[in-house]
């Protein structure tokens, strides 16, 4: 892995974080980021805020840093960062960008 270590982890955070204040995960998300690139940092913050605010009943948000886990990005066919995958409920949905447009994200996530 040629990724440089200092760029590796999102500041002050383990690479793979499940923020799970829940028992039943009726919303399961995976967010791919690239170290502490500005877009990525913003995306993490935005994702958390949205989840906390709009899905208080329970969610699972996994954050994957591609600097550390490029193979996972390959497996999930990630092209750009940040990319948010909505895994549950199906079907899988992809969102790209720093998740600054809350309205669009809510529309995409609460399809059920």
């Amino acid at each position: 892995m040629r990724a440089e270590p200092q760029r590796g982890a999102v500041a002050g955070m383990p690479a793979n974080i499940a923020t799970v204040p829940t028992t039943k995960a009726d919303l399961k998300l995976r967010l791919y980021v690239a170290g502490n690139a500005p877009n990525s940092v913003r995306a993490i913050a935005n994702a958390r805020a949205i989840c906390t605010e709009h899905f208080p009943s329970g969610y699972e948000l996994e954050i994957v840093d591609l600097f550390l886990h490029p193979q996972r990005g390959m497996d999930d066919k990630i092209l750009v960062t940040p990319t948010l995958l909505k895994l549950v409920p199906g079907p899988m949905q992809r969102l790209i960008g720093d998740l600054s447009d809350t309205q669009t994200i809510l529309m995409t996530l609460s399809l059920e």
Partner: protein
Amino acid sequence: MLTGIQGFDEITEGGLPRGRTTLVMGGPGSGKTVFALQTLALGARNFNEAGIFVAFEESARQIIGNASTFGWDLPKLVKKKLYFMDAQLTPDVVKSGEFDLIGLLTIIEAKAAQMNATRVVFDGIDVLLSLLDDATAERREIYRVREWLLRTGLTGIITQKVSDIDEDRRYSFLQFMVDCVVVLRHQVVSGSAFRTLRVMKYRGSAFGGDEFPIALTTKGMQLTHRGPTELKYKVSNERISSGLPRLDHMLRGGYYRGSNVLISGAPGTAKSTLCGLFAAAACSRGEHTLYVSFDEGADQIVRNLRSVGIQLGPYVQAGTLRMYSTRTRGPNVEDQFSALRAKVREHKPRCLIVDPLSALSTKLAHLASADAAQQFLDFLKAEEITVVNTSLMDGISTDEATATGISTIADTWIHLSYVVQDGERNRALTIVKSRGTGHSNQVRELTLTDGGVTLTDVFVAQGKVLMGVARWEWEQEEQAERKRAQIMADHKRLQLQLRQAEAAARLQIIQTEMEARAAELSVVDSAAGVASTLLKADREMLRKLRHADDEEAIGESADASRTPAGRGRRHAR
């Protein structure tokens, strides 16, 4: 870093800059993907360099499928040396806010390290970047790619769609940013497609900035550069028959082996017939011959030539003659010539016919196709293949430019034309030029009959060239004239003979008359003799009777000698 693209590595003196970014720009269908993919594929196959192809536009499967015609054996390479990465965003992707390519680059970097790859292609990256909807952001990401390439030491190729190189300023910054810019163009001139390649920029390298024609062949992209400037061919002194003895004679022995012969002329002037004769002659010598025809099927040509007594069928069956008919429209000129080259390499002919070569070059306001034609002829020359080309010239236009400048590189140029006279068209053949052979300056009339093709002397009469029926009439008239003269002469001779006979007859008469006169004369003489004898005797007798020798009586009797003796006697009484 060598690309393996024939011609490109030569004009750039070593290919693309290693460890740098090259931008390949061009409109749709100009061959950007082929250029990039070929660099990867041949890098893997020929130079054992692994590569990654990031496909933003088409799926990897499509790209591999499309390239299957090029014979690079991609599926095999994919296992070991090539990695295709699908990088198309599915339509259902929702965009919310800004993004960047860091993730992608990170993944590629990991893959490159794993494969030990040195080459990477970003094909159609604009498709992804346009989603950013922000020129500044797009620019930032391109810079990111460039920085990333510099850092990783990979040699990068970015393809970029542009509709018009000069007008499309959207990505013009790219040209300043990268180290090498290759511009591909796909132009249509008068309905005919031309692909060209131009190196627009190459930092730290001398490069030929010309546009070079390119061809997409079964081996991939090829750049036909003009080849060595110096022309070196083996030349032959061998003469081969044109198939028409009279024409051979006009050329003082036929075409030179390895020369190229141009037969120009308006439609229907029997250009193809001359080609057919040449083909038949070549085949009868047992030489492999390739007959390339455009817009006319092989069977049709064979049939048509049969109508003037040229039999090609048996040679086709024997395999000596290969007919190759194709459409003019279709692949671009460069591709057509590549296809012809391939045919030539396959059949290895000693004689080649291209009928008509101008099919490839009529739409030819464009330099590229003239270049292509010339290169093709050069190639044939190097292979010592004798080639007979035809070139269509429309009606009156016979200036050299019409023949695409082919005329200037043709060694022998035969022009066929129509002479319209007395309500008919007749074919006339002239040799415009013939390098290295003496040749007749005479116009000949070309006549086609069921029995074959012949060249006839044209008649010059009253300062006019007579052909066809006029010539026939003239011949008839001349014949009649000769006949008349003959009859006159005969008549005269008869008259003279008659006169001679008359003279002879007269001579005979005169002679006879002379004889008669002579006879008469002798009769007279003898009568006179008898008379004088009688007179003498009479006188003797008288004297005897008178017993006198009276001298007067002798005188009287002398007078009476002309009268009968009796009367004399009466006088005497």
